């Protein structure tokens, strides 16, 4: 992915900022110029930042009547040429799932930020959780492939928002920032550079906007009002957008390409971060806010003579299958602390036969380092 240098939306320097606010600033730096949203705890701060910041950079903002309307307006704006986003939490994401499949089949780039809170249903609005990891991957009906990244710091609320926008534009796919209440409401130092690398969707006039010769290609994307006579539809369609609702060959090719345009290039998405893994016998896999506790736990275990190491998942989807397989080959046991009942631990078992031991916590509180240390020591 070749990025072009772009001047950020904030002056370079050190800032003390909240995670949700850093996400909004990252979006602006990535070129986001449209936001539609609906109030929800713990994501509302993103919207509140955007309502004042977007007009300053020439963007448009609207608070919609519900989350289905929000994601729908985002997709409409994306086809009008915008880099567009919304932010929500579990209950709102449940409504947005309706349009997720639409964004996938129409190959609409957009960013959906999910600041996760304790569920199911209304659950605990102000409490952190990581319960939507599988939902973003499997929530929409039909097979589909999406991109999801998981920040562990205020810095990454900024950096990964930029990256998620870039990947979304590169692959013409909805991208998720899978944050949680703890990192969303965290306040810490944010360093903003002079320039950020951004990717803008390709426009190739005259080429079909919904198909490529290659089975794993990403077609160019014109905007409304450019004279392309765009035919955008959520029905199965040919490369020009004509509905083909009875043609099995078109259905087969479209569904395969929607998956392979990402799976075949997943190395551009997958990002992991290794800590003390060189000689590790005990592996820990964590992501998001939980990875902070996991890193502390690994360091503590080292002082106690346990050779532990951390593999942090920066990207969640597509899944870091090779990194997990390699970790399994290196370690005799792998522990997975997460604020859910073992969603990512379960996914890992597809790629390693090494014992994967979930360390779940779903009481609406973050996982503490001592709990991870204790969980690992109990199962050594």
């Amino acid at each position, binding site marked *: 992915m070749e990025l072009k240098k772009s001047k950020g939306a904030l002056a370079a320097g050190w800032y003390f900022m909240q995670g949700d606010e850093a996400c909004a600033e990252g979006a602006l730096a990535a070129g986001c110029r449209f936001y539609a949203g609906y109030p929800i705890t713990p994501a509302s701060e993103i919207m509140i930042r955007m309502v004042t910041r977007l007009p300053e950079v020439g963007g448009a*903002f*609207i608070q919609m009547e519900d989350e289905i309307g929000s994601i729908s307006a985002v997709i*409409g704006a994306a086809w009008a040429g915008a880099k567009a986003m919304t932010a929500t939490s579990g209950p709102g994401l449940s409504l947005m799932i309706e349009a997720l499949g639409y964004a996938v089949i129409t190959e609409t780039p957009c960013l959906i930020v999910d600041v996760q809170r304790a569920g199911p249903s209304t659950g605990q609005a102000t409490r952190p959780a990581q319960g939507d990891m599988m939902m973003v991957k499997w929530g929409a009906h039909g097979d589909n492939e999406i991109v999801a990244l998981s920040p562990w710091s205020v810095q990454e609320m900024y950096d990964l928002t930029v990256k998620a926008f870039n990947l979304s534009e590169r692959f013409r796919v909805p991208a998720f920032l899978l944050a949680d209440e703890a990192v969303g409401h965290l306040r810490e130092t944010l360093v903003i550079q002079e320039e950020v690398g951004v990717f803008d969707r390709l426009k190739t006039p005259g080429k079909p906007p919904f198909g490529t010769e290659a089975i794993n290609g990403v077609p160019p994307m014109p905007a409304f009002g450019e004279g392309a006579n765009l035919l955008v539809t959520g029905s199965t369609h040919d490369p020009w957008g004509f509905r083909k609702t009875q043609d099995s060959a078109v259905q087969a090719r479209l569904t395969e390409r929607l998956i392979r345009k990402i799976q075949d290039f997943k190395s551009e998405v997958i990002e992991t971060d290794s800590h003390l893994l060189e000689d590790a016998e005990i592996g820990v896999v964590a992501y998001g806010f939980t990875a902070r506790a996991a890193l502390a736990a690994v360091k503590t275990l080292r002082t106690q003579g346990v050779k532990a190491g951390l593999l942090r998942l920066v990207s969640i989807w597509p899944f870091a299958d090779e990194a997990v397989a390699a970790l399994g080959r290196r370690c005799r046991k792998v522990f997975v602390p997460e604020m859910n009942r073992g969603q990512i631990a379960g996914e890992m078992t597809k790629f390693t036969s090494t014992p994967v031991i979930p360390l779940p916590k779903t009481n609406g509180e973050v996982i503490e380092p001592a709990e991870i240390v204790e969980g690992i020591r109990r199962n050594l």
Partner: protein
Amino acid sequence: MNPRIYEMINDRAFPTPFCPGCGHGILMSAVLRAFAELEWDLKSTLFVSGIGCAAWIPSPHFKADTLHTLHGRAIAYATGAKLFNPRLKVMVISGDGDLSSIGGNHLIHAARRNMDMTVVCANNSIYGMTGGQVASTTPLGSLTTTTPKGNAERPFDLCKLAEAAGATFVARQPVATPIPLTRTLKKAITHTGFSFVEVLSPCPTQYGRRNAFRTAFDMIQGLKNTCVSAEKAKEMKAEELAAKVVVGEFVNSGTQKLLDADERR
């Protein structure tokens, strides 16, 4: 026919998928005639539709940008496109079930905001594409596949709904009178703010044959007999109007402040 219309249709998309006797073809031609008579360039016009028979009127038949969206969500998609690019003329064309039942929330809120767009609701009083189920617009007593003993629920008056929600142009016309329909559509298109046109369009396949209208001709004739103009209705008694549908312009207030996308920047 106005020769400009030929430049506005997508040859590859014909023939249409509409049943014989469906009113949507008349509505399709009325919309195109309205744009042609206004000498409007469709290059800067975006047509948005939802799911159902009426959603096929613009997409794939119009040679313009078309966005065929999710069931009920057309107005929300249109809102996003219009806000980001205020230079687009945005027209939503969809059915009664799509716009007033599953999409009712988006309809009333776009009207409340006075979003600068035209919404054309093709009302055939039934869910046609899915096999003739009762809709929020089906008249009392009508037989449908989900009201085998007759519809016991009162239908929406879509024009009153749009007016109460704040639409600044509201009108109703049947496809049975295409010339007044085209005239009304032209007014709606050139209106600044949220314009709503309910178009009564017969569905002989799913509605007519289960009720008193055995043929497409009966349905068109039925529309002509049932509709009464707003002017004429003023001189009629309540009991005379009970079985009638009033058509015409109900709201045209161009002076109201609308939600201007540029002002949000």
